[in-house]
């Protein structure tokens, strides 16, 4: 039951990114049907609602509901924006969609435009993804030439222009309002919400912004029906999902499986641990989601509720699998550095707090930790989380709390013995 949605064409085609090949597996049929039969936009939105699709960018907000916030008949320009900024450490699924299935994303974006009455769309691709950008551009050219993009699509009177925008290297631009600022030619600093993009979005106009995987799911949902999609998954977690799986494993990669699939099955898919090592811990939903001990993970299913109940988040579906040679202090040091480096600097708790967290973790890592540092970390987390304009601050606090919850012992060992409890012996810089 794998590869039903975003990867549905991949195993059948040699060059699935080519228009003709995509069409040979039913590509653009849904769009054609909608345009030729003038399917009601509200019907499209209703199907999306029925599908139970939750945003695949990390927050898990219901896509159909988001679309319904836009009043289609309000005058003036509206926009559809795709978030291909993919910067959450551990995540590399949208890259595969851009590389291998760009037409399905294009088809999904045109349908989204039709549903909300937008005639222009942008796909924000992270700047480092140059090769993926070129692949997507080539697909845009083909779609334009075939009349799936442009004016008066297939004689329906509906126009839709689609462009890509390249980022410049900034994790925070994955946050939806920072991304909009970035398209507007500014620093990517998140906006205060409300107003939400559905009311005040790109260029101040009503905008829906969705993740690459969310939008690529649209054509299949409309083809097979909302119920069909929902049934793929489990309660509260409709559909299948792309999981980017990396770490100390034999066969890393992106796998599409139904939501609710046991982690242990995914673990088999990736061929288990490398070099016969032992599974120690799993980051289940990208760097920002709290770590879960390996044993506990083996009993969990991969869906929004199960992972949340375990105290973490499904997030973007980025699973990092960690073996028993890895020092959790060193890992947290690197993660905390990331948030410090990527904080946009706008909110004081995040700008100062992420640096503070990193410096404290870093001194523990380097054998200079103090006993009171563990409480200090917890207290700094409390001063960041929930006190910032965007969720980057929360994202910085969550992994710290997760590590301290399950692996405090290793931090304590670092403080007491000035070296690692596991793995490669003394930490760097220490005798």
């Amino acid at each position, binding site marked *: 039951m794998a590869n039903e949605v975003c990867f549905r064409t991949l195993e059948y085609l040699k060059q699935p990114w080519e228009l003709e090949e995509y069409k040979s597996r039913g590509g653009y049929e849904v769009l054609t049907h909608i345009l030729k039969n003038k399917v009601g936009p509200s019907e499209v939105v209703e199907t999306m609602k029925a599908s139970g699709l939750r945003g695949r960018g990390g927050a898990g907000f219901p896509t159909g509901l988001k679309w319904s916030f836009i009043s289609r008949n309000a005058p003036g320009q509206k926009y559809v924006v795709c978030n291909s900024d993919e910067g959450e450490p551990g995540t590399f699924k949208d890259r595969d969609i851009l590389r291998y299935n760009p037409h399905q994303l294009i088809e999904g974006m045109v349908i989204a435009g039709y549903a909300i009455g937008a005639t222009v769309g942008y796909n924000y691709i992270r*700047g480092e993804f140059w090769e993926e950008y070129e692949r997507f551009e080539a697909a845009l050219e083909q779609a334009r030439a075939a009349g799936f993009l442009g004016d008066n699509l297939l004689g329906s009177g509906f126009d839709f222009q689609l462009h890509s925008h390249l980022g410049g290297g900034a994790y925070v631009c994955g946050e939806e309002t920072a991304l909009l600022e970035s398209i507007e030619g500014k620093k990517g600093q998140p906006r205060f919400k409300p107003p939400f993009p559905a009311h005040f979005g790109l260029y101040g106009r009503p905008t829906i912004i969705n993740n690459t995987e969310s939008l690529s799911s649209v054509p299949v949902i409309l083809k097979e029906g909302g119920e069909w999609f929902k049934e793929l998954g489990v309660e509260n977690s409709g559909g299948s999902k792309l999981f980017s799986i990396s770490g100390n494993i034999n066969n890393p990669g992106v796998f599409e499986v139904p939501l609710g699939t046991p982690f242990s099955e995914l673990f088999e898919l990736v061929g288990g641990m490398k070099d016969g090592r032992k599974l120690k811990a799993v980051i289940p939903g990208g760097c920002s989601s709290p770590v879960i001990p390996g044993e506990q993970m083996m009993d969990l299913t991969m869906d929004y509720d199960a992972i949340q109940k375990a105290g973490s988040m499904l997030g973007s579906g980025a699973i990092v699998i960690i*073996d028993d040679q*890895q020092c959790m202090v060193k*890992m947290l040091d690197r993660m905390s550095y990331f948030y410090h480096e990527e904080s946009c600097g706008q909110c004081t708790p995040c700008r100062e707090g992420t640096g503070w967290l990193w410096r404290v973790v870093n001194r523990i890592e380097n054998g200079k930790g103090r006993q009171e540092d563990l409480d200090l970390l917890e207290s700094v987390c409390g001063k960041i989380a929930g006190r910032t304009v965007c969720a980057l601050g929360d994202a910085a606090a969550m992994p710290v709390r997760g590590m301290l919850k399950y692996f405090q012992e290793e931090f304590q060992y670092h403080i007491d013995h000035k070296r690692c409890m596991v793995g490669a012996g003394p930490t760097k810089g220490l005798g």
Partner: protein
Amino acid sequence: MKILNNPLQARNKEEIFSEEIRQDIDCWIAKYPPEWKQSAVMAALRIMQDDNGGWLTTELMDDVAEYLDMSPIHVYEVATFYSMYELKPVGKHKICICTNIACMINDSDSIVKHLKKKLEIGFGEVTEDGRFSLKEVECLGACGGAPMFQIGRKYYENLTPQVVDSILDGLE
């Protein structure tokens, strides 16, 4: 020093950049609403950076500002906010190595060590012959191929010191 935003001294757009560059930037301007030319600033900076051997000077940023009818400070803000713009010279081949978690637990440290030793430079430095520079970057979204780096526009994955040697030796 030229005085910007002074209509008396403003240049014709044709005088600012070569025709080729203008065509390239104009393609980007055309994607956005006419009153939002500044949306093309990221693209224009990238184009100028590529044209200038991989880094931006203040003069180039001023030119971009003038071309897009923006204030220079606004362009500097953008150029300093995003990590892919370089404000100092870089090597002909800019090696951007990811050291974030998936790469780290797949021993990106050993790749970093190997590169530093082989090229005799640290992060943020350029080799004496100007061929290489080294930069530590955050997750590049290729964690399945960890450890990895990007040189220019291309990703290289599943690196080992041997693979690194053959890649670098194969570059001009």
